[in-house]
């Protein structure tokens, strides 16, 4: 029997911590005749930082899109907290306890920084759609709690001074941090980071690395990233994709010396 994982996901529930938190089993994705992913498997333990790397076009983003329901795989299965996940759709992610950041920033341009974060703070503190409609206004207490939590996350990421600004008026690294704040405010059990370091300078990147390491006691992190230094320093385990297949999997040290990985990256490394 398949239970809806959305119902089982309560915050702080650690019953599933024995097995992997999230598992992708032999997933295949075909776009017409093109094989984007071929029998790709991936397993994320609770509190683990898992990197997904590979040359351009290796299928990293497709894999991410499978994980968040943008792309429905043609074969293979997904498991979340030990339960199979069928027909994953993006709107279920938040309830399940999965947050994702997007390449670029993906902030709502017409909403203030604080409002952006409050949209993300949806998971625990909200009434359902119908009751929210009937009440229209959250009770003052909930409203205050939500605001406080949004402020707390903004403060944690050092962006609280921008709370009332529109994202477009802020420097890019600050926007990236706000996007991260919006993902964190839902207190997910797994965070999918899609190229979090793109467009960042060395200082911001080092800070990001520390921050990601600091998230491990609260959630698992899956990371797609081009910057090899960052991946090698923050990840516990790394999956390497090339041409839609997993060519290596292991700790940063194992992966670094794997001939298949060197092979896959040879062209890029030389350039």
């Amino acid at each position: 029997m398949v239970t809806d994982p959305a119902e089982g996901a309560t915050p702080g529930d650690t019953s599933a911590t024995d097995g992997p938190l999230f598992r992708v089993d032999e997933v295949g994705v075909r776009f017409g005749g093109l094989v984007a992913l071929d029998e790709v498997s991936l397993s994320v333990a609770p509190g683990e930082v898992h990197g997904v790397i590979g040359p351009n076009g290796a299928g990293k983003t497709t894999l991410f899109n499978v994980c968040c329901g943008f792309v429905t795989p043609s074969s293979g299965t997904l498991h979340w907290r030990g339960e199979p996940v069928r027909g994953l759709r993006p709107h279920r992610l938040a309830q399940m306890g999965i947050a994702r950041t997007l390449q670029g920033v993906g902030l709502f341009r017409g909403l203030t920084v604080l409002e952006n974060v409050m949209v993300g703070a949806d998971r625990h503190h909200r009434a359902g759609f119908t009751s929210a409609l009937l009440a229209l206004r959250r009770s003052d207490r909930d409203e205050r709690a939500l605001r406080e939590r949004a402020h707390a996350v903004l403060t944690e990421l050092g962006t609280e001074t921008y709370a009332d600004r529109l994202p477009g008026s802020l420097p890019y690294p600050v926007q990236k941090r706000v996007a991260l704040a919006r993902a964190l405010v839902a207190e997910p059990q797994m965070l999918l980071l899609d190229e979090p370091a793109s467009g960042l300078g060395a200082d911001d990147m080092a800070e990001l690395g520390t921050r990601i390491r600091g998230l491990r006691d609260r959630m698992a992190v899956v990371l797609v990233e081009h910057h090899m230094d960052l991946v090698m320093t923050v990840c516990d385990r790394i999956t390497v994709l090339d041409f839609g297949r997993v060519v290596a999997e292991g700790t940063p040290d194992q992966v670094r010396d794997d001939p298949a990985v060197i092979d896959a990256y040879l062209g890029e490394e030389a350039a």
Partner: protein
Amino acid sequence: MQQFLNVTLTGLSQGAIYAAFALALVLIWRSTRIVNFAQGSMGMFTTYLALIVIEGTGSYWLGLVVALGAGLLLGAAIERLIIRRVEGGPELSAIIVTLGLFVAIQALAAILFGATFRSFPAPFDLRGMMVGGVNVALTPFSVFVIGSVVLVMAALVALFRFTDVGLRMRAAAFDQEVSRLLGVPVGPLLTLGWALAAVVGSLAGLLIAGGSLVYPAYMDPIIVYGFVAAVLGGLDSPGGAVVGGLAMGLALSYVSGYVGSELVAMAALAILVAVLLVRPHGLFARTAARRV
């Protein structure tokens, strides 16, 4: 001077109605990138329902409640059953669907309610009030018109600014995909957006009918003026729609009062062309970059 005052007052109360109508268009444009050409027909239809209730019960207010409630349901049903199928598809499909609805609802109204002119009551006196011994063109009914439009706008501002549903509707309007990722129920919120817009459109239909005649095509000029008002405001900006509506009301009233009432429609089109030439994104568009 007195004529100027009267023309201005008439323009303001007409403008309030155009503003409401433009606001309905903007609400839908913001959330679904569709110009709802059927808005006028929907408002016409619910106004006919109000007329039936008013004639049956003698209560204008019961008719008003029925019209707004019917607008809510009609808007929700049209989004959920018809528009949902063309959302996200080619822009042209949605436009043609709303144009088709525009014609179909009008035809349906003609079948159900007849294509003759019928008079629609007003809840308040239509004679101008006496101010300091001078009869001005501000009637109790036009006070009601302006007041109810202001009330509805305040309610919408409160909804969007201060409630959770409003925040999530704004988020969904900016980016549906990201909103879904964050757990925002985008589909139901789109339905709600259409429903709210249809309520505002129904109110506009009801107010324009008050003390006047209704027939299946009586909203047609309002569609044009309301659309021009919305474009004037940039289509994207609710505040712009209100200002655009009032500006339209005043401009058309001045044209009618000083130049000739036969030129009103032409003046509306001239304003539209002028705005599109000079400020293609409207007078109040927040950004020029957001193109679809």
